[in-house]
């Protein structure tokens, strides 16, 4: 299993500080909750941890190596859901998940099975034949989370997974994510939901104002 490490990681654009320096380590089978006020840099930190953005200060490492999503190994290891994904309007919810599973080498009926099981786990199996524009905002959020869960990963990064979900769905998602931690995955979530942080995280980091 993989571990993530942030060593005095910070980010700025021009002279504007987006993320004040922060350090932590998260190992396999552990979950870290990133907390802080709006604008404290939570999403920026998650982008850095998923290799999408280079920190302008400090170092972000995965298994001791720099995080850069241009490396296939990083893409293979890290599954990140930061913001809404770019859905395809011509594909149904189930076809989306089958497509994603296929790109990760789960071919034929295996892709169908993993798409089925992910939808079932998130209790959205009844939505399999709906196009994305036919989903409610909460259903779209669940499909969005499904896109991160349907593929293999060692590291799972989620930005505010509680968005637009009712209390029952928040508990459901918390249980699914916690199960991934117990399986051995490294999980980092940014969240404003105390319940979700309580249910998932083993440790938390509070970001200060940049």
């Amino acid at each position, binding site marked *: 299993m993989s571990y993530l490490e942030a060593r005095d990681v910070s980010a700025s*654009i*021009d*002279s*504007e500080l987006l993320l004040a320096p922060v350090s932590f380590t998260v190992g396999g089978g552990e979950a870290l909750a990133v907390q802080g006020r709006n604008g404290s840099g939570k999403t920026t930190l998650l982008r850095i941890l998923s290799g*999408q*953005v280079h920190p302008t200060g400090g170092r972000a490492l995965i298994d001791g190596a720099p995080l850069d*999503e*241009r490396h*296939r190994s990083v*893409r*293979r290891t890290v599954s990140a859901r930061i913001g809404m*994904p*770019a*859905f*395809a*309007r*011509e*594909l*149904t919810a189930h*076809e*989306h998940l*089958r*497509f*994603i599973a*296929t*790109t*990760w*080498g789960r*071919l*034929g009926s295996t*892709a169908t099975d993993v798409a089925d099981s992910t939808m079932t786990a998130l209790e959205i199996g009844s939505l399999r*034949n709906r*196009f994305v524009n036919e989903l409610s905002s909460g259903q779209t959020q669940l499909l969005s989370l499904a*896109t991160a869960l349907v*593929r293999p990963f060692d590291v799972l990064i989620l930005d505010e997974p509680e968005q637009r979900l009712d209390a029952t769905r928040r508990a459901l998602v918390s249980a699914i994510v916690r199960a991934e931690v117990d399986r051995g995955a490294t999980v980092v979530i940014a969240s404003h939901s105390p319940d979700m942080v309580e249910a998932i995280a083993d440790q938390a980091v509070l970001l200060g104002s940049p």
Partner: protein
Amino acid sequence: MTASADRQILTQVRSVIAGGSGLPTPINAGYMIYVALLVTAIVAVPLIRSIVLGLASADVLATITAPDSYRVVGVVGAVLAASALLIARTRGPIVPSPFLTEFLAGSQLARSDTLRRPFLVSISVLVLVAFMVAGIVVGAQLLGGTTAVLPAALVVLACLAYSGFLALLWLIGQSCPRRTTVPLAVAILGTAIAIGLGIDAAVLATPWGWVAMLWESLGHPVTPIRWWPVIALAVSPLMFLAAPTLLNNLRSSEIMAQARRWQSIGILVQTGDVAGASGVLRSPPTRGRHSPIALTGPLPLAILQRDIGAALRFPVRSALGAVALVGAGWLNAHTPSVTNGLDWIVALSSVLLAYMAAGVWCDGLRNATENAGPTSLYGRNILTMIGSHALLPALACVVLGSIGAGAAVIGGAVFSALPWWILSTIFIVLVRILDCAKGPMPIGLLLPIVTPAGDVSILNVIAWQFDAPLIVLTIAGGLSILFVTAGPEAIIGLIISIGIVMALAGRRVRALGRLTTS
């Protein structure tokens, strides 16, 4: 993971996409092919034929086969190469849909595999355009009898090879950091200047120079064909060996930004909002936040300061706009001195360039019109706001354009070209105001107009979307040509046109601001 496993995954991925429930039906696809064939037969073929026949006239052929014309080819080739590097961060060769960017380019598969198809499509488009342009020019020369078949064929092949070279530079521009691509583009532009100044070493040492050398043998039977540039260009596709590395070096954030931007532009264009589409292309500022804008003095002066301060936050765009305006003035002033048959190209290019460059200084104008209406942000009436925001584009066009026109006059162009330019810029700025105040497209323009060739309501939409550049081209461009032979009539015509456009613009502005506070 092995290459064969990757290929197997890609095949399966494509089959999932092909089986998508919401894809167009075969009937839709057949209709698109039918429309494409009709457009080719009714529009493209006659248009290309008329261009070839137009270029085949003796005057035009004399210009494009002039002894120094190869230098122009070299300069154009170098400018295209530099442009390919620089525009790639706005529109690179790799722009898949956001969905494929997220889930295919973001998968474990190598980007050299997942992004190969979009790159091949971009190469194909460039090759096709190069073939058409080279075919038209060379075809005109063959028709005019000024060249033999072999050099003509070699020039076409050279252009095809060069288009591949441009595609690779385009990919380099998207894949490599600006600290690499900008100096490279500047160096290429340096060779363009060297070629323009007559330094032959720059012709011998550069791919654009090799194309120019082959061009030189067109229309000059005494100039022997030099084979080494042919061979060099023929082996240039070997550069594509670097393409996989460049594709793997692409960042998902960069591809996604372009994918989302161009998807938005596509939607806006489909819905007829070309102004909105061009707005998406304007990147947000990243510098100048610590340079406060004073906003002192009377409102028009404060707004002028606001617009200048805002323009300085886009230094590259403003610099390009300034250079374009100087060039437009210079070109316009040269209209009278250009050979018959080409003066219209110079005149139309100059006014179109001025119109486009004026847009760089119109951000405030656009913001004022976007905020017109019952919930306007601003406490002054829309006429005052638009009038004040028009100051910067007017000043930029008059001052910067006059520098170019003045330089042309010093260089030998007729003096009357300078006041003519100033009058033309007033017209162009008024057309800019007219365009900014256009508002949403009337829904009635979308009503179908049935003809044997199908629904031609798209022509209404095109006319609505592009009315401003069409007005500039036909009136400012047309009268610039007339000015050469009938100066007083052209001046009277332009003054009347200014009055008409001013009245139309005023009407549109009042319509926008009918409910605003005064």
